[in-house]
């Protein structure tokens, strides 16, 4: 799992690549934890390279979503592949996270 974080025009861009599963969910959480305490609350996540996420991964996206909401920002996930999108749909996460 590769996580790239860049800042541009007061907006945070995150690019994800690979799988989020049991073996690396914790590391993924560490990688994105800094995003939860930022002054630039708007986050855009590019999920083009993300091939799978376990429920631990969903939980981390949820935590991210909640922190963004607390800071008064917006979180958007882009380019999600259909299999991953299905997981988000089934669990109802598509209702609370903006997926475009």
């Amino acid at each position, binding site marked *: 799992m590769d996580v790239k974080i860049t800042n541009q025009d007061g907006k945070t861009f995150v690019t994800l690549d690979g*799988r989020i*599963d*049991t073996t690396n*969910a914790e590391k993924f959480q560490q990688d994105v934890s800094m995003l939860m305490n930022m002054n630039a609350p708007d986050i855009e996540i590019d999920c083009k390279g993300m091939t799978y996420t*376990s*429920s*631990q991964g*969903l*939980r981390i996206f*949820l*935590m991210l979503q*909640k922190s963004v909401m607390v800071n008064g920002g917006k979180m958007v996930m882009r380019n999600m592949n259909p299999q991953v999108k299905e997981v988000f*749909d*089934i*669990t*109802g*996460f*598509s*209702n*609370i996270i903006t997926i475009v």
Partner: protein
Amino acid sequence: MSSKNFSGRLSWRIIGIVSVILIVLFVIVAVVSHQLITEEAMRATQHILHGTISDIEKPLTEVEVVTKTVAAHTLQLTDAVEDAHNTTNTNEPMEQLVMHTVMGDSLISGCYVIVPSCLGNAIHYSCVLQGGEIATGTLFDDSLDSQADKLVVTAQEKGDGFWLPPHQSLTDTNKMVATYCTPVYIPNSKHLAVVVACDLGVDWMEQKVEELRPYKNSLTTIGCSENCIIGIKDTALLSQIRKSLTEDKEMVALNEDLKQGKDSIRRRIGNGRNLSFIVYGPLHNGWMLSIVCQYRDVLERSSKMHVNLLIIGFIGLIILFFACRRTIRLMTRPITELSESALNIAKGNFNAKLPEIKSQDEMLRLRDSFMYMQNSIADYIEELQTTTRANERMESELNVARNIQMGMLRNDFPQQLYALLKPAKEVGGDLYDFTLKDDYLYFAIGDVSGKGVPASLMMAITRASLRFVAGLHLTMDETMNRINNCVTDTNSNNMFVTLFTARIDLRTGHMDYCNAGHNPIIIVPPDGEPYFLKAKTNLAVGLFSDFTYEAESVELKPCTRIVAYTDGVNEAEREDKSLYGNERLMAYVSSDKVRNTSTTEREIVEGLLASVRSFTGDTPQNDDITIMSIII
């Protein structure tokens, strides 16, 4: 030879190297010293040879001078000689002359004056020492005539003085004498007047060569003629030498040298043990003095010294070996002790004492490293023991937790329902529940995000809430709302639960259900294809307490099968990361086995589990698996 210990092996190696060096040194010293000694011996022998030559020549010269003096005198007496011929009387002056000659010179043992005669017998005047007495006379002995005649002929041929090789004395057969002869001519004429000869005893020469032995088996000889060699009495040896003079290359060269009056050395005479060198030089009269020395005599002392050196060297090597071994043993003792300590440590005695080392060298460093290792291992083992104890405790606690968790799940299945739950770890986050009340079958299946202990605690909360809310017999949406409220209130860690709850009216086949983000359950109708039950996208439980869940309903025909599961089934992973997937799941539920109403629910559940297991093979289970099958 091999040695099992280090000191022995190293000592052998040192001895080997030292031996090679010593042997090479020894060979060089031996060869060089042999050469030097041989050269020195030759020089010394040559020196002796020259001294001896001049010693021998002195008497010879004296005899020659005396003989020539006598010859001069005889010329004055020639007339008298002539008279004597005529008168056949003795010539008094001539007799006087020869007598005075013998008496006047101690070297001369006999003096002869031979007057050759053209008229019959020659006249001989002689004076000889016979048994210490002087005997003079004019000899007419026939036996001497022939010899005297030969002498005269020889003298005429030579024309000057010459030496006869040693021969038996005319008067004493036991005595060997050499004779110097000189012819005297009538002045201004080529006519031989007389021949004067003087005998010189050679016993002193024999004695001299006998005494002249620079080395034990040296042989000193004076070669006077081919048949007469003073110093050799053995006739066999004599003939052997004569033979070698023509055959042996060295001896032939020697003979050539002598003919040219050279003195020299021949270094390789004889062979084997008798290998010798010969030093030789000519006397002025053409005789030859030679000294033969055998190399083994020359080198005897140095050879003995070499043997002694070898013995001393050998003893030295033995001493060196033991000294080396002892020193090495002393110096490497710490290694031996360290190896014993290592063995002790290996046996588990981490406090094994290490040897004391006083030297400030590699041994000390080795000991220090060893000590460091010992301490590290001891610390590590202690840490490991602590960790192991902690792990064991945790494991036993987890086992208790597992038992408690499994106790939460019902296993008193009615005939139309069966379920199983296989956690990926000791405890898991999946749950199921069911209850039959008044022709209604209530059932639920759920999955907490994550797994292990955190998921299991969340599962317990969800399970308790579910039980509590289910007892209220509310509608499915209300049931889910209540459960969501309960779980969200206690969820500070953003975990969530996907949950499916349903109520089936067993009399009509009407099913109310609410799906909170769970995998769609599968409906297997008795007369159609199995399908995933569509549900509204509700949010998983535990996220937002104010979320409003929506319930739905479906009419089911009798003998319809319902298969519910958690994502541990369709997301079961193989080693190549491929998933079991919905296709395989659907293929299983489409099989005749599932469609056959006489198959028990337990068989269906266990069949699905077996299908998943055969897909994943040896890959460890990556998520909790729960399967439930119901028939109405």
